[in-house]
């Protein structure tokens, strides 16, 4: 019985090999072992969405996946997508439209918004609300977030023409 496990994975494009406790969640591994503290820990039972990260290109709850399950996977965090510039327009729109105050939900919110926009280039406001429904924000009342995501969708559509 192994309570400690060796894992190798890619995090934001870099190879990482670590020994982790089997019980360690992905988000705790990212924060505590790799000091990637952009992913936040909120409810720790899948409700709030603050720990949202990407595993093999898909958004997941970092608190509902174990680090050991990411052996061999490619994990991307807010640090990675910020550095790559992938969501620079979303980040700017969030800032411009006051779509964040305390910022606790923002990394998860941005990754979830990017997930929506990569699958649906012209989402309705209802669809935006539905897609971010798993991400709690206690500051903004969501309206500004929907505005920001909608404006980026329109801007990206315009730039594709």
């Amino acid at each position, binding site marked *: 019985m192994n*309570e400690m496990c060796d894992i190798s994975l890619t995090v934001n494009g870099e190879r990482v090999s670590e020994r982790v406790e089997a019980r360690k*969640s992905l988000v705790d591994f990212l924060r505590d072992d790799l000091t990637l503290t952009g992913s936040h820990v909120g409810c*720790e*039972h899948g409700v709030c969405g603050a720990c949202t990260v990407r595993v093999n290109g898909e*958004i997941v709850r970092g608190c509902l996946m174990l680090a050991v399950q990411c052996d061999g996977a490619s994990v991307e965090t807010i640090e990675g997508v910020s550095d790559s510039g992938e969501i620079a327009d979303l980040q700017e729109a969030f800032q411009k439209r006051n779509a964040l105050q305390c910022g606790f939900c923002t990394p998860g919110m941005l990754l979830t918004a990017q997930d929506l926009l990569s699958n649906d280039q012209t989402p309705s406001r209802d669809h935006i609300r539905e897609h971010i*429904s798993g991400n709690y924000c206690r500051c903004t009342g969501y309206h500004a977030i929907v505005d920001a995501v909608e404006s980026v969708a329109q801007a990206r559509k315009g730039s594709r023409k």
Partner: protein
Amino acid sequence: MKPAPFAYAKARSVEDAIALLAQHGEGAKLLAGGQSLIATLNMRLSAPRILIDLNGIAGLNSITLKGGEVEIGAMTRHAEIERSDVIRKHAPLIAMAMPHIAHPAIRNRGTIGGSIAFADPAAELPACLLALGGLVEIAGPKGKRTVKADDYFKGLYETAIGACDMLTGIRLPAAPAASRYGFAELSRRHGDYAVAGLAASATFASGKLTKVRLAFFGVDLTPVRAKAAEMALAGGDLDKAVAALASDLDPPDDIQENGAVKKHLAGVLLRRVVQQLTETRA
């Protein structure tokens, strides 16, 4: 909170998973998508000694149409089901339920097998299985067996799955031409567990509903058929069907609502779902 310490083993096959279960007994838990299990571990509502991870087992995530049935492998993710043309065409009730199941990030991990094995009384897929009269495929130390949905749910989080068994897939009757499906739920936030919900299947022809199966969820310890209401609907009387829910259902109070409110909501849901079952198709 953080889970209590546990060991971790990755099963290579269904047989391997069952052997590991037999070896470790009650202290072992199977890990499918983990979207309920890991939450309960984090809250220390459960503290297994070992988790047996099913995510490395090949061949359990297929959706196939075979001999008039839709077969869905246990490890098929909600997101895969949501995108599946086979599901949309041949198991439309499942397609209707899908957007109500949690949120995109959770649908990327959660599995149909995990949902039906866990059997949360407020979850959508167990109720859909019951409404469709589907079959559950279970593998155990003595081999494989198939259990009908009507015989599968035993109590709160209790099913026909034994201690050393594993759910390997489900089979649903492929939708015949005259079949109709209805789905509605009431929840506090989109994607949350339902306060009350209803999944239904029926045949609709010449203005009449027959073969009605109503599976309510969030109103009892398991998803439940409302058989008196089914009979009333087959007799063409919606008001009588709503009234019959008084004898069909006896919802206990829970963290979300009291039983009386749930009972009232069940009637609201039934009217909405019957509308879906009987509306003219475009």
